[in-house]
Every structure is written in C-alpha cells, then in structure tokens.
C-alpha cells in the first residue's frame, strides 16, 4: 500500500516536473521566436505609426496575441505574414483611435522639416530616409508604407483605410515627392 502510494507520489512529481520543464521549454521557444521576429514587427509598426514609443507598445501587443495562439503558429509557414498583418491592423487601429487627437495636435498642413544630421550615426542615408518617413503626415506615411513595405495595391490600401483610390494615389505621390526632396537636399 505504502509502496503503491510512494509510486504514485513519485509519478506525480515526475509529471509535475515534466509540466514545469515543458513550460520552460515553451517559454524559451517563445523567447527565440520573439528574437527572430521582433525587428520585423517593430519596423512595420514604427513605419506606420511614425512613433517609436507607440511602436514598442503595438509590438508588445502583437506578440501577446501571438502567444495566445503560439501552438498553432509555431509550425506554420505563414507566421511572418500573420505577424505583419496583425502589426499593420493594430497600428492602423491605433492611429484611427487617436485620429481626432492627431488632427488636433499634428501639423498636417505644415511642411516637413528634418533637422540637419548632428552625429555621425545620423549622417547615414538610410537613417535619414527612415527619419523622413516617420516625419511624413499620417495619411501620406501610412499609404506609402503599405504600398512599399507591405506590397499592397492601391485598391487594397483604399479598402483597408476606408478612403478613395484617388486619395491613396495622391498621398503616395506626395509622400514620395517629400521624401525625394528631403533626401536630395
């Protein structure tokens, strides 16, 4: 009887140990998963939002959503696409939620100004372009990013943002012109 009880207790400990080990292994796997994809998700959010602090919040939200369905996602080949789509949707939702605030406080009509590079690091052309994208007005930046980085068509962008096709085309054109001016200056 005692032997049986001891056996079942040891089995219990073994199983509990296995459970803890499995949880730790899953944690480690998820950590590796974040390391692999964090730059991509952060870039998508930062370019759409034009704000690194908000982008960090959105990236966190994306990975928490990914954790909720990690068991289905980890073996999927479409995981990168899924993360990009979620990051894009959450970033656009974030902008829409604060649209009134953005309109009120942003300088939509004002010309885009980028300070002259101060450090060696900022002197990098790619960083200048990255900074210029962030400084574009919301409408131009979001359309331009969806077009160039997410490979979406004009029609898809118009449907996603709920605006006319003509507005998408104009915004992308204006955004590109502003970027060219800033880079060639």
């Amino acid at each position, binding site marked *: 009887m005692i032997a049986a009880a001891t056996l079942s207790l040891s089995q219990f400990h073994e199983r509990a140990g296995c459970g803890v080990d499995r949880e730790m292994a899953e*944690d480690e796997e998820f950590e590796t998963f974040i390391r692999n994809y964090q730059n991509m998700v952060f870039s998508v959010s930062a370019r759409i939002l034009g704000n690194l602090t908000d982008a*960090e919040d959105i990236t966190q939200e994306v990975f928490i959503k990914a954790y909720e369905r990690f068991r289905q996602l980890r073996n999927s080949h479409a995981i990168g696409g899924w993360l990009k789509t979620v990051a894009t949707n959450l970033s656009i939702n974030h902008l829409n939620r604060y649209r009134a605030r953005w309109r009120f406080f942003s300088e939509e009509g004002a010309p885009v100004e980028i300070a002259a590079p101060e450090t060696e690091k900022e002197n990098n052309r790619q960083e200048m*372009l*990255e900074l210029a994208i962030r400084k574009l007005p919301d409408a131009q930046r979001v359309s331009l990013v969806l077009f160039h980085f997410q490979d979406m068509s004009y029609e898809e962008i118009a449907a996603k943002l709920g605006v006319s096709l003509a507005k998408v085309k104009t915004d992308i054109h204006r955004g590109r012109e502003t970027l060219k001016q800033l880079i060639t200056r």
Partner: protein
Amino acid sequence: MSDPNKDWLDAELKNLRDLEAPETLLPRVMKTVRQQARKAWWVRLIDPRTDLCRSFMLGVSLLVLGLFLMVSPAQFFSDVPVLPALLKLIPLLLGIAGTVLFQVKIYHFSVLTLLIPAIVLSYVFLIFAASTIQRLAGVRK
C-alpha cells in the same frame, strides 16, 4: 522592359533594413506573457473580451429594466406567499421609492424628472473628463 514609374527612391526604400527593436521589448513581453499564464483560465477567457462582456451586461441590465417596467415588482413580490419576512420589505421599499420619485415635487417637477438630467449630465461630464485626461496623457507621451 523596366517600369518607368520606378526610380532611385524605390531602390532606396527596398534596401531599407528592419529597425532594431528596443532591448526593453523582450523582457516586457515575457513579463506580460508570464503574468497572463498565471491567471485563471476564465480570467484569460474574459480579459480580451472586456468590451463584449460590458455590452452583454448592459444588454442584460436593459432587459431587467424592461421587465421591471412590464411586471410591477411590488405586486410580484407581494403575490409570492412563501418569501421570508425580510424579502417582504422589498415591495414596501419599492413602493416608497416609487412614491418619492413620482409624487414628491420640487418646484413643480417630480424628483425623477430632475434626477434623470442630473444622471445624464454627470455621465457626460465623466466621459469628457476621462477623454481629456487620456488626451493629455497621450500628448505628454
């Protein structure tokens, strides 16, 4: 044949590398994830659906309110013979509340007529205050 609309900017944009995620991101996500994993299953189930739960509760409240208007609660409780004495107080209290709300007059207005705009105004004020705080917090961020 090359696309005439494509120019050097396309090439520059295409060559842009991913941005470096902040170092604080990974610990933040793992902390939140571990906190979430420790929560009970039903909390995990409800947490992401807070808006849905709130709407459901609002719907139930409106239904109860509708039922109260259709079925007189005072009469309903007084008709049940086996209710304990304490519960028998309910129709009495409801009767008093009804009398106060409908029959007591302040400057020719019933208490209910004055109470409803006061509730609506305080609700509007609370929403306004909350959105102002949220906006200021966002701007500061």
